[in-house]
């Protein structure tokens, strides 16, 4: 059972969190102007890399805050967590 470092509450067991999928997928400014394909990209298509992945989590049992994490999907290790208003950290 992994520990996930909530940017507010600190490390907690993963059962306290819910997964939110890929981070930094902004809601389109003007959905009406998008082609069906472009809209489908937003609704259904997410990256699925093996390796570093910026994704969303929410500390649902705790402070109810959504935050971002950079996690290695190969090892499942959390490499960084950051709040929605913080820039995506650079990790090699």
């Amino acid at each position, binding site marked *: 059972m992994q520990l996930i470092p909530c940017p*507010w*509450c*600190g490390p907690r067991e993963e059962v306290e969190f819910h997964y939110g999928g890929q981070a930094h997928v902004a809601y389109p400014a003007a959905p009406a102007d998008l082609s069906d394909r472009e809209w489908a990209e937003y609704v259904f298509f997410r990256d699925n890399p093996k390796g570093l992945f910026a994704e969303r989590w929410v500390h649902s*049992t*705790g*402070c*109810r*805050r959504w935050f971002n994490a950079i996690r290695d999907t190969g090892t499942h290790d959390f490499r960084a967590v950051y709040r929605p208003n913080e820039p995506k950290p650079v990790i090699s």
Partner: protein
Amino acid sequence: MTADDVAVDQRVSPLELWRAEFKALPAGVRLRELAFLTQLSLRLVPESPAVAAVSEALGVALPLEPCSSAVAGEVTVLWLGPDEWLVMTPTGDGETERNLRAAVQGHGAVIDVSGQRTTVSVSGPRARDLLAHGCSIDLHPRVNHAGSCVQTHLAKAGVAIWTRDDSGTDFWVVVRTSFADYLARWLVDACVPHRQDPQWQ
């Protein structure tokens, strides 16, 4: 008899049917429902100009540190999130609520959530051991001190656990009303294997 008295008379707490069970537990743990605490959800961004006024209204600085709390007389303030606090007080005269509303003005929100949760006092020399059956957070006095307030799972119920001393023997467990019966059942059951345990007597 005023309308208020009528109302008070007829209040029902989620765990009143568990009183007898709680009393029958080994002496090492004491469970008691602290029913009818007025509970206010205070919503405010920490940067808000109202923070000062709110602190004044509470009589104590609003705790901004995650997982912390503050106490002013009978008023307890638990940190639930960066913009959310639970203000608890045994007094039902509505004064705290009025003062908070006045202090918050348009900057946030004060919501009466008194019926949303109930509070179970878990105390005694084995209190920490009892919680350890279902709580993954380290409540050892070395790392967990009086005043900490953590929201986590106790068994399968979401709770806030407020630590009230530095010896790991006094906690408040604040739980959603609808989960209270489950949690009481779970706590009582957790004590069963310890009935014969001398350390729990």
